[in-house]
């Protein structure tokens, strides 16, 4: 962990926090209005706003998680810095691909 990783980890967390709140509100809204999957898809498909919102969230989460996991691998897995960074980068890319695929599935028309 150096100052660059530290700032990226904190900054991504700071941006994700309000986004998580929005996400929770969305869940409550969908529950309260008893929206079906079809209702939800009809709102998200073709929506640039939701696509950007969740797309950005996926990018932030991938960065945040890979820095954290790299640290965990070093501290608890006693991995060398290089190896931990490589493993964590692989995880970050996996999260990014899976996340963006999921976003695409709900927003692409």
């Amino acid at each position: 962990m150096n100052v660059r990783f530290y700032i990226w980890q904190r900054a991504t967390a700071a941006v994700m926090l309000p986004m998580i709140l929005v996400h929770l509100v969305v869940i409550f809204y969908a529950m309260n209005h008893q929206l079906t999957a079809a209702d939800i898809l009809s709102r998200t498909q073709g929506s640039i706003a939701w696509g950007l919102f969740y797309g950005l969230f996926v990018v932030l989460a991938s960065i945040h998680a890979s820095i954290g996991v790299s640290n965990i691998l070093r501290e608890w897995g006693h991995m060398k810095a290089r190896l931990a960074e490589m493993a964590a980068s692989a995880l970050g890319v996996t999260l990014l691909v899976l996340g963006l695929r999921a976003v695409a599935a709900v927003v692409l028309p």
Partner: protein
Amino acid sequence: MSNASDVLQVSLWRGGAEGGFKTYEVPLRPNQTILDIVTWVQRNLDATLSYRFACRVGMCGSCAMMVNGHPRWTCRTHVAKVAQKGVVEIAPLANMPIIKDLAADMRQFFDKWVVAHGAFAGSKTRADEIELIKPAEPARVAVDAAIECINCGICYAACDTVRWNPEYLGPAALNRAWSLNNDVRDADHAGRLAAVSADGGCHNCHSHQSCQAHCPQSLNPTRSIAGLKRLSTQAYLRGDLKP
């Protein structure tokens, strides 16, 4: 030593890393310290017992050991406060290699002070005026809160991050760096900030405050490290730091 209430069961670490605990019976005395116990064993039961101390009054920082699992300055730790049902277990300081018995090898601990630029870098000669520093200036207040470290290594032994990451500079060295970077007379603020912002530096601290809870001088390395993180973040965002 027949009366159990007058006798302490003391387990002392014997040998090097491969050693183990050996139990001794030590007479209980009023106002006895942990260092008194160790000294009693060495004088009365086994003269080969190795341990380290100097001042016996909490000034030199050389007598720290693990007492019932916690790092403590043994010369100022009363047995009555820490004994658990008449049992005391004493081991060399954690997070350091064992030399022998209760003596830990503190070289890494001190080497990291050097890595953290723990030495004052003067910028003046004796011909210059003496710098006037007002006691109420915020930088001086920050220094006041962080000095009086006796280099005992207790915080270092209490820190999980040191245990997990051998590169981590640790609470004492970083606390020292913070006090020097608040010293207006020091000429190495930028170099020191770069040193403590690199891999192994202040950003590894998890802020769980074990160092602060154990420091016998009631210092708060966690707060000092938070200060370094702040300085380092500002310098990085200004473009003054390139990790």
